[in-house]
């Protein structure tokens, strides 16, 4: 069983009804994510990995089974997680500092304290001096850092990330991965990281969960045998990386081919 911040997924099934048909998106999902663990979900498009993440966030209801977070069943919007997606969710009509301050406001932090805290967080992600800018004035990578600063500011102990760096170019992606890993080493949140990039999954995670094509089922779970304190720029040249990557690819490739054929 999991400790305080862990996630327990028990016999979860998710079906969508539309146009007079029922489509099974996820079937018989059982998974325990320990507190402080960094888990990546990989799988072919449409395998339901994002759906599962959205169910942990409480945005979508489960059709059958249950999801426990902090030992409590998730039944509505889960306010104990941080949530970050590929699409920018920073509010375009608020300045960078107003965005970062928003969750602090919701959690009742007094204004004076809020200002200092926001400044510290912006500094932490290398955005000091950009507090007064609107998101439209920033580059894509900078907007990601704003979202990260926002998550850090109110400090949820669980982070749900759905291809957060998917829209960034390769170099920027590496930089963001490095930043995220550093933050995780410092704070040891529980992280669920959805990606379709195997290398990204192996680089970051302690465990990688491979999903089959629709209906999504857990096909393989691969523990990543790499040092926790790893260098994202060089880790890919280690033999353990290659071994894990190969095993994961062998599990994933037939699922992707099935999707191609269908």
């Amino acid at each position: 069983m999991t400790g305080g911040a862990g996630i327990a997924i028990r016999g979860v099934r998710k079906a969508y009804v539309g146009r007079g048909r029922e489509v099974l998106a996820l079937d018989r999902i059982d998974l325990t994510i320990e507190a402080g663990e960094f888990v990546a979900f990989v799988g072919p498009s449409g395998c339901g990995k994002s759906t599962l993440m959205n169910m942990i966030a409480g945005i979508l209801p489960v059709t059958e089974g249950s999801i426990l977070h902090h030992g409590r069943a998730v039944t509505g919007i889960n306010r104990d997680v941080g949530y970050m997606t590929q699409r920018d969710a920073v509010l375009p009509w608020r300045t960078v500092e107003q965005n970062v301050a928003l969750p602090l406001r919701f959690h009742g932090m007094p204004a004076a304290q809020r200002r200092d805290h926001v400044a510290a967080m912006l500094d932490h992600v290398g955005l000091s001096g950009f507090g007064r800018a609107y998101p439209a004035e920033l580059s894509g990578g900078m907007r990601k850092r704003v979202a990260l600063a926002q998550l850090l500011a109110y400090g949820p102990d669980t982070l749900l990330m759905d291809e957060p760096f998917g829209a960034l170019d390769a170099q920027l992606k590496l930089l963001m991965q490095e930043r995220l890993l550093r933050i995780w080493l410092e704070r040891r949140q529980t992280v669920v990281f959805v990606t379709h990039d195997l290398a990204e999954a192996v680089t970051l995670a302690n465990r990688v969960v491979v999903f089959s094509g629709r209906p999504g089922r857990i096909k393989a779970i691969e523990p990543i045998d790499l040092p926790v304190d790893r260098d994202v720029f060089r880790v890919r040249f280690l033999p353990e990386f290659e071994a894990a990557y190969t095993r994961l690819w062998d599990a994933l490739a037939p699922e992707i081919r099935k999707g191609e054929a269908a």
Partner: protein
Amino acid sequence: MSGAADEVAAIGGGLRTASVRAVEASEVRRRVLVIVLRIVVGVAFIWLWHHASGRWIDTLLISSPEAVGLRLWHWTLDGTLWTNLSVTLEATALGFVIGCGIGFSLGLLFGRYRLLAEVFDPYITAIYSIPKIALAPLFIIWFGIGIESKVAVSAAIVFFVIFLNTFSGVREVDPLYVNTTKIMGGGELSVLRHVIIPSAASWVITGLKVSVPYALVGTVIGEFMSSNSGIGYLISQATGLFNTASVYAGIIVLALVGAIINAGLKQVEARVLRWRGD
């Protein structure tokens, strides 16, 4: 780092080189050209009007720029202009505020509650297709020939524009913003205040810009039908007496008022929507 160039471009940086100054100078030249051409068009129109009047077209039909200018001058001196203009402006402003207030609130409500919108949809569509001008005589029976009936006409017209725009604006809100804000700890009211309303603001402001002239039209129609003061009253009086100079003078005043209010709203729009960037 590939983001560096983006970051410099995003917030200042770079140098004021000769080509920057050249680009700016050409922008200024273009703005000046537009203003000069606008003045030329205006002067040409007045000159044409002046020449046509009494020469090609009967003065009774189109009056003349001199007569209209003189009339406006007299109206200004003897207070007629301000007395009547203030009546029209007051009714317009009240109608605008009331129509906006009700339209915005109902738009938010219907946008948030799907069932409500579905139930009322056919009725709203039916009422929307009534020409609001057709309601003016009814409002005069209800509220009398004073300012109230004019306020009612312009409020009825403004209401629909704002209601429909707010409704669409609320419907267009990206659910990602709503969900993320809730996950961060925001309640229903916070979502409304920090997500729904700012997100719908661009639709609402478009609605406001469209509805200002409508509010003016509503008031003036009310004044045409029955009243004892206001610019619409001046115009309809003058029409009855075939005093075309006064008719044109009234119309010009209305046109100017509409243009001034719209320019003001553009400033408001630029402030409220400054987050959109260029």
